[in-house]
């Protein structure tokens, strides 16, 4: 069997999700038996200008230039995998959408801010069709392997559409709300095995929201623990700002 050609690309991001590949250890060599990596700028000088089977794309779209680049990439690949929170939901880059773009650029760059072309942060699927989603900030290696297997076999992969709480309960954590902490677990998609809460932190919602959050349940929780809507909104404005952008686009 011919090995499928795989290429890695990045847009605005920290490249941490690509680094997770190098963090697989010797398992990476097993993966490399199955695929041919033709381009991966962060660790390879080889470049590939032809078509390929699978594109694994990290980062969000934040410039007009990036819009054109992702469209061209989409034309060159059979399968496109959105890789990491920046690509799947806009991620932490979306925080800038909470600001007026002129003002925030002025804050950082001063009077020369116009040199820094920028548009509202968008996830990949706001521009092109995405075939597989690997959520998380950063991605969770066991899920990466699962999705890669599915993509290589041509099978669909469904991201869990239940909340992080399900996995958190299985991990036997004390609920963050019981500690008086506002946590995004109840409305965030599972699949990370409640990574952050297992380590004593809260869920920031990096995997995006479940498609049908239990609003009444959330209301009850907020009332029980005296949590304001603002506290939840504040946390939603970290990873999940692009959600509103997508809703706007749907309405159009």
């Amino acid at each position, binding site marked *: 069997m011919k090995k499928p050609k795989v290429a890695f690309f990045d847009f605005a991001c920290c490249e*941490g999700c690509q680094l997770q590949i190098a963090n697989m250890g010797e398992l990476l060599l097993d993966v490399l038996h199955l695929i041919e990596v033709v381009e991966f700028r962060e*660790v*390879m*000088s080889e470049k590939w200008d032809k078509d390929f089977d699978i594109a694994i794309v990290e980062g969000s779209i934040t410039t007009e230039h990036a819009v054109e680049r992702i469209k061209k990439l989409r034309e060159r690949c059979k399968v496109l995998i959105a890789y990491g929170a920046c690509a799947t939901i806009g991620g932490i880059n979306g925080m800038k959408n909470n600001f007026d773009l002129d003002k925030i650029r002025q804050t*950082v760059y001063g009077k020369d801010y116009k040199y820094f072309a*920028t548009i509202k942060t968008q996830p990949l699927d706001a521009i092109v069709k995405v075939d597989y989603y690997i959520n998380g900030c*950063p991605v969770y290696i066991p899920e990466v392997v699962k999705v890669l297997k599915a993509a290589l076999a041509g099978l669909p992969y469904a991201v869990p559409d239940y909340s992080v709480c399900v996995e958190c309960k299985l991990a036997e954590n004390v609920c963050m709300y019981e500690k008086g*902490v506002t946590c995004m677990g109840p409305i965030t998609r599972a699949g990370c095995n409640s990574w*952050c809460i297992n380590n004593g932190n809260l869920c*920031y919602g990096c995997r995006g929201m479940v498609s049908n959050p239990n609003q009444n349940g959330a209301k009850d929780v907020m009332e029980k623990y005296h949590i304001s809507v603002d506290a939840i909104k504040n946390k939603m404005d970290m990873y999940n700002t692009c959600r509103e952008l997508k809703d706007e686009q749907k309405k159009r």
Partner: protein
Amino acid sequence: MSKRNVKINVEYLTRVEGHGNIVVDVRNGELNQCELQIVEAPRLFEGMLCGRSIFEAQHITSRICGICSCGHTLASIQAAEDAIGFKPSDQTIKLRKVLLHLENLDSHLLHIYLLVAPDLLGVKSFVPLIDSHNKVVRRALRMKKTVNDVCDILVGRHVHPISSIVGGFTKLPTPKNLDAMLNLLYGMQPDMEATIELAATLKFPQFSRDTEYVALVSDTPEYPMLSGEIGSTDGIRMNKKDYRKITNEFIVPHSSAKFCKLSRSSYMVGALARFNLNSEKLVPQAKEVARAIGLKPKCINPYLNTAAQLVECVHSLAEAIHFIEELKGKGVDYSQEIVVGIDEKGNIPICAGNGVGAVEVPRGTLFHNYEVDKKGIITKANCIIPTNQNVNSIEHDMKKLVPEILDQTDDEIRLALEMLVRAYDPCISCSTHFLNVKFVNR
């Protein structure tokens, strides 16, 4: 010198973190243009921090860079704690030092094995090495995985650490955890020996340019990484609060990036700078390795930054083990475990203030500076990362190097320049505020 023309345009330089181009233009043997252009999409972190609580700053700023997320974490926490006048406990400081050494080890190993070694072995990436140098590749991946596994135990994961926050740690290692970390680190020692042997066989390019080297310095016997004052090989010594007087950021019309300078036209930060300033404070094993590979302060060949990283790997492995052994010997005080969102409970008193974090991360001195109001909300943020400080030095090196190697082919010149930039281990996605970027139209 030959009267030839050379035009080099390396778009999207590979095997570095982030997006940069090298542009060189030589006409009739005269150097017209020689630049490292930064084409990273602006991410506006300093703007995004405004209006956020200092307790959220670590989570946000660790996302500036996946490779140095632990370094950003520590600089961010230090700036936040400095702003509100919070003093971390000895135990917390010790655990943070372990984290910083793991970060140093992880990043240096990635750089030495996966980013630099392919050049020295004459291939384009580590992929061809899987067949030709299988043992070496396996060792590299194994060592990296080991450091990652230790980080997993200590802070949940290496990329975007979870449990290290303002005030301390949300999860403290159990005695079993400490043993597991020690087992992993002691188990890594034979691989480190093999790494040193390999390094002794690598030939680095010959080149030298005398410049100023900047790093944390201190009066204690410890190799300063997490605290100290800022010092230079030209005799500067300043409090971290005066970091702007160190970096002196300025704009030059021809250039793509905001430049830094101190006593001379440029300065260098990173492993080589730290070695040049503090080599006598390295652990004996690391000093031994430096002697064996012929690295002596003051070394002015930037290509040897990679060699200094190797020396630091030996140091960081030994120090990580040392601090974990100390924690084990003394016993961890679990009453210090903190609950995230502790601000909401008022356990840490908050006041208005201005705080600076200055931490030696793998690529050099990293500064975070936050101004916070009386509720602990950030009103102003500034981050100056090592690569920002090094770009000026890289360009000065390139300008000296190109005329010296004009008798070589274009491909050889291109490779020498790429290797030079890579030697600095630039982390371009970190670069939070480059100015006057000339975007290359593609």
